[in-house]
């Protein structure tokens, strides 16, 4: 149906998608060119800066702290032999060999109170006494257990007196071994899931504040009168998804730069089963799905709340549930082929997380096509439920809640 206006321009009924596009276009441009988006882009920088500062301070604290050493109280010959042996072993074993602190070179027949030395002298974690043939290690249980092997090796080296030439090992790194492949992919899957979860949680909340703002502006009734609420919800969801993708794109570009500059220091992840390009592609799609699913729930909440405080109260249970869904998907990933995994793949809210993890571990593509279709279906269902809730519960006017007020008044009067 369309009308030709006096200037000849046709206005016609907008389809649900066309109407959603009108809303999405407005929201997308309004948010993208707002100051809040600039700060949103800087958002991830703050935890990175705080993390780096905390790490730096921690390193300084660690560096300034005394390194606990192994106190030695043995005969002069044994002490010298131990020191020489340590000097030979350190190049090969590094920090595994404890620092030696000479407490006393004992004369023949002289005894030494190791417990008293531990209590008195600072910087000593344990004390080595006895002889090279029968060394005695005194100290806290866990520590002396750890130092037992290295001290034994030191004693053997010291006793032999020979200079042992340790061969130079030629290293031949491979991407993965058959035994390590599954473990490596599991790590990749866990990392992908974690990334997906963090992004979803960080960005889905934006939908909430957007709709509350809309209600504050009182524009929502104008939208509801002109286009179906489904279109309003879809438009808002996709606008925020677009904004999120711009944000993620920016962060990814910044991250790539960091990777190029300091890539050798970043953790190496095993090649996923579907390959990196496909996993990244799936990651984007599953992020969109997870975002749309969670966003549609948040949108329904936002549409029914009137203040930011109400939004926070209403969204808290959803956030907690989402956290549980993430744990569920993480657990399911470690149980391939089980009922738990199947349930995580089917349950709409855990499906994107579980499927992304599957992409890291299983090369089959068809299940992803089915899962994406299934998740998209749920997005539509949830948006329609949200729109219906909005129409039935939100657009009340005048004394819509007067009945409740009357009850309250009656109760007050009764008192």
């Amino acid at each position: 149906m369309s009308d030709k206006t006096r200037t000849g321009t046709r206005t016609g009924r907008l389809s649900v998608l066309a109407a959603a596009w009108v809303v999405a276009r407005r929201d997308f441009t309004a948010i993208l060119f707002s100051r809040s988006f600039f700060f949103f882009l800087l958002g991830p920088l703050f935890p990175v800066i705080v993390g780096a500062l905390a790490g730096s301070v921690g390193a300084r604290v660690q560096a300034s702290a005394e390194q606990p050493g192994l106190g030695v109280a043995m005969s002069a010959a044994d002490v010298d032999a131990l020191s020489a042996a340590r000097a030979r072993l350190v190049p090969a074993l590094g920090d595994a060999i404890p620092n030696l602190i000479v407490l006393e070179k004992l004369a023949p027949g002289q005894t030494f109170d190791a417990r008293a030395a531990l209590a008195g002298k600072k910087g000593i974690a344990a004390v080595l006494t006895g002889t090279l043939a029968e060394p005695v290690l005194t100290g806290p249980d866990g520590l002396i257990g750890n130092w037992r092997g290295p001290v034994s090796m030191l004693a053997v080296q010291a006793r032999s007196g020979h200079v042992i030439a340790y061969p130079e090992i030629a290293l031949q790194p491979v991407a993965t071994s058959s035994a390590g492949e599954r473990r490596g992919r599991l790590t990749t899957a866990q990392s992908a899931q974690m990334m997906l979860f963090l992004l979803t949680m960080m960005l889905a909340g934006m939908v909430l504040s957007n709709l509350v703002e809309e209600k504050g502006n009182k524009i929502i009734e104008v939208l509801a009168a002109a286009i179906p609420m489904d279109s309003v919800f879809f438009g808002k969801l996709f606008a925020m998804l677009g904004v999120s993708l711009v944000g993620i794109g920016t962060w990814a570009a910044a991250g790539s730069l960091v990777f190029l500059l300091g890539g050798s220091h970043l953790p190496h992840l095993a090649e996923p089963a579907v390959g990196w390009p496909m996993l990244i592609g799936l990651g984007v799609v599953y992020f969109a799905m997870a975002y749309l699913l969670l966003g549609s729930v948040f949108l329904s909440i936002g549409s029914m709340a009137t203040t930011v405080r109400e939004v926070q109260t209403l969204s808290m249970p959803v956030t907690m549930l989402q956290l549980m869904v993430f744990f569920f998907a993480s657990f399911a990933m470690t149980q391939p082929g089980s009922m738990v995994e199947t349930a995580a793949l089917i349950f709409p809210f855990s499906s994107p997380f579980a499927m992304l993890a599957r992409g890291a571990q299983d090369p089959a593509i068809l299940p992803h096509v089915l899962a994406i279709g299934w998740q998209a279906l749920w997005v539509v269902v949830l948006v329609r439920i949200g729109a219906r809730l909005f129409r039935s519960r939100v657009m009340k006017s005048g004394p819509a809640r007067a009945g409740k007020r009357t009850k309250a008044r009656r109760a007050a009067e009764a008192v």
Partner: protein
Amino acid sequence: MASNEGGQADGRPLAIDAHGLVKRFDGFTAVDGVDLQVPVGAVYGILGPNGAGKTTTLRMLLGIIDPDEGTRRILGAERPHDVAHAIGYLPEERGLYPAMKATEAIAFLGSLRGLPLKEGRKRAHELLERHGLGYAADRQIRQLSKGMAQQVQILGTLVHRPRLVIFDEPFSGLDALNQGKLEKMMRGLAEEGTTVIFSTHVIAHAERLCDDVAIIAGGKVPFAGPVDVARDRIRPQVRLETRAEDGPWRAALPADLRREGAFWNFSLPEAGVEPLLRALIEGDAGILSLSIERAGLHDAFVAIAGEAAARALEESPEQEQAR
């Protein structure tokens, strides 16, 4: 203008044809069986006290909410959103994006109704110029006064040149000058063949503008029809001054007789003015002055809405107290 509206009343095609609309919220019946027939091209007023159900009725007509019972046909369509491109709506609670410029706000409202943005911007400029707001075209809504922002929203309601315009309390928030401008604009729309519906609780606007009105009270419509018919529901008021204070002529005066200074005020008896005059002359009342005034819409509204409220209170006291 070609019409594909559904239904007719007295041979006139209807822009709105609603029957038995009911809406309940949490057990509270906000609208209780409303019937509305609005002819194409009419200026139609929906009058009612606060909380009467006007806004809820309009929201049902627009498809913002669905009725629990009843049927509605808007411009011939059962689903209002199917003809949204031909409808303009100004809600009671005005709302625009504060960061948008006036031109963009108008164009955006048009785009929601299917008008391309480019054409919307062009028309927005024209409308702003025509209504003396050209200087505000590039100002953000947040930089405009409340009244100016409201005018911008009114222009946004009309930018796509709708066939049916619904205004919910359009005069609230406007100064007297702008109220006059809006009345003129509404008359202009009707002259162009646009159907104009507005709700108000200020009866003077309806009296000046409307051909037909519906009075909503207690969620019901106790009266719907031409303004003249509404006025005729109240008997003309007689104002009489006599030389004599008392006499047999007093028997001819009706029971609602009220003394105000030197004057007697009462409703014109059903028999008409001639028997009254005869009784006054024959009874030697000594008529000093006598005037008969037709009841205004305000009096009619107060009487009709008052009766309806009293009836509703009798039928369902809890519901009415809640209202």
